[in-house]
């Protein structure tokens, strides 16, 4: 199934792109996707404990399942706002 991936901040730097299209096996979870990505981008492994993920602009945890056409955003802890 085809999905769209978005990367932000340091994750975008690691992947070298803000926006990727990917073809995933059916019934993949967000965790499966991260494991797959870590093969191509080993630096991502260090982020695994803190990484945040959103599917279609809603936060999800790693067990969330992915559907055809989803927009999956992968990013480090946010740092907007102020101190």
């Amino acid at each position, binding site marked *: 199934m085809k999905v769209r991936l*978005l990367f*932000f*901040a*340091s994750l975008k*730097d690691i992947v070298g792109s803000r926006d990727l299209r990917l073809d995933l096996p059916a019934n993949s979870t967000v965790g499966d996707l991260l494991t797959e990505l870590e093969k191509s981008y080993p630096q991502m492994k260090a982020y695994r404990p*803190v990484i*945040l993920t*959103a599917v279609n*602009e809603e*936060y999800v945890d790693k067990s969330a399942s992915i559907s055809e056409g989803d927009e999956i*955003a992968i*990013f*480090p*802890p*946010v*740092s*907007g*706002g*102020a*101190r």
Partner: protein
Amino acid sequence: MISRPGELYQITREPIEVQGISRKLLRAADGAVCVFEGVVRDHSKGKRTLYLEYEGYETMALKKLEEIGLFVRGAWEIGTVAIVHRLGRMDIGETSVAVIVTSSHRRPAFDACHYAIDKLKKVVPIWKKEFFEDGEVWIEGQ
């Protein structure tokens, strides 16, 4: 931008005009205005900051600003709320984020404003990159 009577949520690349926003929001029944501004400061972890850049997942960030606004409107007796975050390059002293709450009485204005900025910092997908004399670094939350 999401703008309704009594509410404004915005991700912008322009300077934030706090006073203009608060005057536009204020209702005749409001006696209190609490404003929080986050400002670019000149240092971070002991290093001298030259300037910052903010980037965001803009569509989701706007949704989250609205969620926070709707929550504080439900949780406290306030009149109006605005939450605006600026993206792009900002110099020292410029406002990166503003939360403005008006209400009849002052306590709910303080409480809602404080809650909103704390929550924003945790859930709104925006990241800050600090530029120093000898390099740049993403500041990422915990």
